[in-house]
């Protein structure tokens, strides 16, 4: 049983302070233990763990983005990996430029892959990529613009349901193929890698890693707060109504397509931020991130965690990623059985995902109580 006080807290503010609090404590703990305790100390948290957690938190933010559109607006996007990857590429381009003349060919201007493909100069779309501000802008604008264009076309034409899902998949698939092409100027299959530093701080130093990790946690907290705010506003209710019956929403005067585009764009930007934080921590971005299977996996995080519950999405991303990390190490040849089995079992046994499990148990408990009191009341009524 969760202590009464926490439950009350939940009731009052929802999950917001809990999630933010958890994030804060973890971040603090991890940073302190990584920097303050030396290796070998029992309290030490290794840099490996820090980057791993950093990666998980990026996934969590991404899951949040998916949940916002899927859980609340009913848009099952099988292409959110595209927004994540675009954010990642925006960051990757910036990091690439920071290498400067420390690349293998020592060209101060061009990234290595352009040098050996005999490119003379940077293509136009790389313009500004060495500016930090521009990078931040692109991290938001890239995914946002794609989401806006795709969304306003699709939602205006009332593409919905599986049609929309499969089109998002086609979108990310097409982008994957495009980014695979060397002519695209994004490093082809190898993508962007071998980054050296960010804003002058070496990416390989522990402090930078901790800072990146903490920033990711911060973004996740902000993202959570933002989503929380959105879904609990009247706008959130409109969006839920759209999920229920889009056409009915129209007849009371809302333009569902505007709402959908808006929320799609917000979600894409969140995914973009997740991608941007992901790249410096894992050290590579390549077209594989556009792969439709990746996007499906994101949806699965949300489903496992509990669709339509913001903290559920986070839990789902963390659980699945952690399971993957552990399983691939403990049972390298059988981990797919375990992961596949996990997916099947969660679907069968926890229809509302992990996040729906605890409340439903609580509900049952409460219900039993309530039933009893109602029965008593009726009995009393009948007697009288």
């Amino acid at each position, binding site marked *: 049983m969760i202590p009464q006080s926490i439950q009350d807290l939940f009731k009052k503010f929802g999950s917001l302070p809990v999630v933010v609090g958890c994030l804060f404590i973890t971040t603090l703990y991890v940073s302190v233990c990584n920097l303050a305790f030396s290796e070998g100390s029992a309290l030490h948290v290794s840099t490996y763990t820090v980057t791993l957690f950093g990666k998980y938190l990026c996934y969590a933010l991404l899951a949040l983005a998916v949940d916002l559109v899927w859980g609340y607006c009913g848009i099952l996007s099988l292409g959110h990996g595209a927004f994540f990857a675009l954010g990642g590429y925006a960051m990757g381009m910036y990091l690439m430029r920071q290498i400067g003349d420390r690349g293998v060919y020592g060209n101060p201007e061009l990234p290595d892959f352009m040098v050996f493909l005999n490119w003379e100069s940077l293509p136009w779309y790389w313009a500004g990529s060495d500016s930090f501000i521009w990078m931040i802008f692109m991290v938001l604008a890239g995914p946002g613009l794609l989401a806006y264009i795709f969304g306003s076309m699709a939602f205006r*034409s009332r593409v919905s349901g599986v*049609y929309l899902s499969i089109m998002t998949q086609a979108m990310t*698939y097409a982008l994957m193929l*495009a980014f695979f*092409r060397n002519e695209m100027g994004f490093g082809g299959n190898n993508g962007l890698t071998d980054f050296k530093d960010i804003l002058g701080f070496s990416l390989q130093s522990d402090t930078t890693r901790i800072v990146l990790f903490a920033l990711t946690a911060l973004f996740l907290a902000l993202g959570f707060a933002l989503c929380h705010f959105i879904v609990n506003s009247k706008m959130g209710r409109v969006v839920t109504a759209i999920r229920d019956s889009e056409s009915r929403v129209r007849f009371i005067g809302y333009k569902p397509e505007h709402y959908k585009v808006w929320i799609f764009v917000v979600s894409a930007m969140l995914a973009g931020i997740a991608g941007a934080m992901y790249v410096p921590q894992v050290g590579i971005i390549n077209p594989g991130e556009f792969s439709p299977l990746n996007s499906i996996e994101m949806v*699965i995080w949300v489903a496992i965690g509990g669709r339509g519950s913001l903290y559920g999405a986070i839990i789902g991303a963390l659980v699945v990623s952690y399971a993957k990390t552990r399983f691939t190490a403990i049972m390298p040849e059988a981990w*797919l*059985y375990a992961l596949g089995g996990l*997916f099947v079992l969660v679907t069968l046994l926890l229809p509302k995902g992990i996040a729906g499990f605890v409340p439903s148990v609580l509900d049952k408990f409460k219900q039993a109580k309530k039933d009893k009191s109602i029965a008593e009341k009726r009995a009393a009524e009948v007697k009288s």
Partner: protein
Amino acid sequence: MLRTFCLIFTMLISALSATASAAEDFDALINQLPHKNLRNITPLLEKIAAQDDERVRFVLTEIVNGDLYYLKSNKQVVSIRKTPDGDYQLTAILGAQALENQSKSAMKKIRTSNRIRSDIRGLLAQLDLTHKKEAVRLAAVKQILDDPNSESIALIKKHLKTEKSEDVVQLMETAMAVNQFKTGSIQEKTSATKALKNSLEPSVRNAMVQELNRLSEYKNSELSEDDKALKAALTKAIDSIKQKRSIYEFIENLFFGLSLGSVLLLAAIGLAITFGVMGVINMAHGEMIMLGAYTTYVVQQLFPQWIDYSLFIAIPAAFIVSGSVGILIERGVIRFLKGRPLETLLATFGISLILQQLVRTIFSPLNRTVAAPEWMSGSWQINPIFSITYNRLYIVIFALAVFFALLAFMKRSSLGLHVRAVAQNREMARALSVRSDRVDAITFGLGSGIAGIAGVVLSQLTNVGPNLGQSYIIDSFLVVVFGGVGNLWGTLVAAMSLGSFNKFLEPLTGSVLANIIVLVGLVLFIQKRPKGLFPQKGRAAE
């Protein structure tokens, strides 16, 4: 090129001068074969070819076919044939004693290389001009036509009189004309050009283009009247050939498109049932295809002697295997997800991971070999520049057959009606005595079974490995959605048009860009028709 020519020439000279005294004994030469390595076998083969012995052709044929071996034990040179039980039947080249069947480990191949084989083939072609079989003679003339020289032309001229087959005569005449074109006077060239202007043989065109290029090097003023006439004739002939070629190219692209479309259709059509009709987002569909392909492999392993008929066993077998697995999945998992269609995505994705790993565990992660039956190999040469490969042809026919069978089932049978009724309103269908559980299981089994059949077909085209399913799942969903969910005709039209679109684009843009363009085109198209090509119509569709 020159070397080839010289080799053939020397061989030929010796072959023709049958009485060449320096000729060594055929038997002795053959017995030397096992002792030669790749570098010094050529002179030996030249000598063998020079023998006037009726066994020469047989030996040379066996060499090009790769059937000439020697026994490790006694270095006896033999030709081999595979027996149905996996052993080899041996025929000694020398001597007539019967040999016992042997396994391959007891012998070693007489090694040759492409170059040597290609040279021998040229030589054989000349010998083959008098072969009993028309097809062999035809092939021989063709071979000569591709690379004519005065000797071979002389031979053709000689045999032309006695040749009875229309086709062979025609081809021989073409060969002579080409020769005339290459070696004759300007007038002869001009008349040859006219005679050849309807020929689609590549060598004809090559010769003409070469000649035209030669003429084009001169200024018009430098050309004689005859030259000019030739040039005009050439331009005209090449144009007419070009025109014909472009027609055939179009037909070819169309066929490629339809055949790609058929593959897409087969891959997607099972999904059109499980996803389109039942509404299950079946991420394990690809793995059902994969299981079908592995079934083909197992069937071939079980009946290695019946490769030619293996597909006829494999098709029902794959249907049963994939269908049963489908039913298992439905009974074990999907039925608990009624009314939660999106969650089927999650569960079936899990299942697909498990199935992939399962075949990795059972069959290893490596691809498995699936042999092509004889009747599915090769191509149907319609004319020198246009042929249709048999496997594609059969696949197109087969895909359409499966499609129409399924269509009839869904539209005509009462089960088909029940499937659709359950899909639209399960509760109500049950209240009308439809046993929805059974219908669900059968439907899912049917969709999966058809995916299994698709796997049999794909085993003839691509890898049979754990990733087979993954490569088709996205395309399958695209096809079903593009066609309009729940509409089988839509699936057909979508598959065929995607296939054709892709194949007409590919020569223009390359296959990577073609894929991208098709995808983008699809996304744009859906804006125009948000419910696919054949949307569900009416009020109820909203």
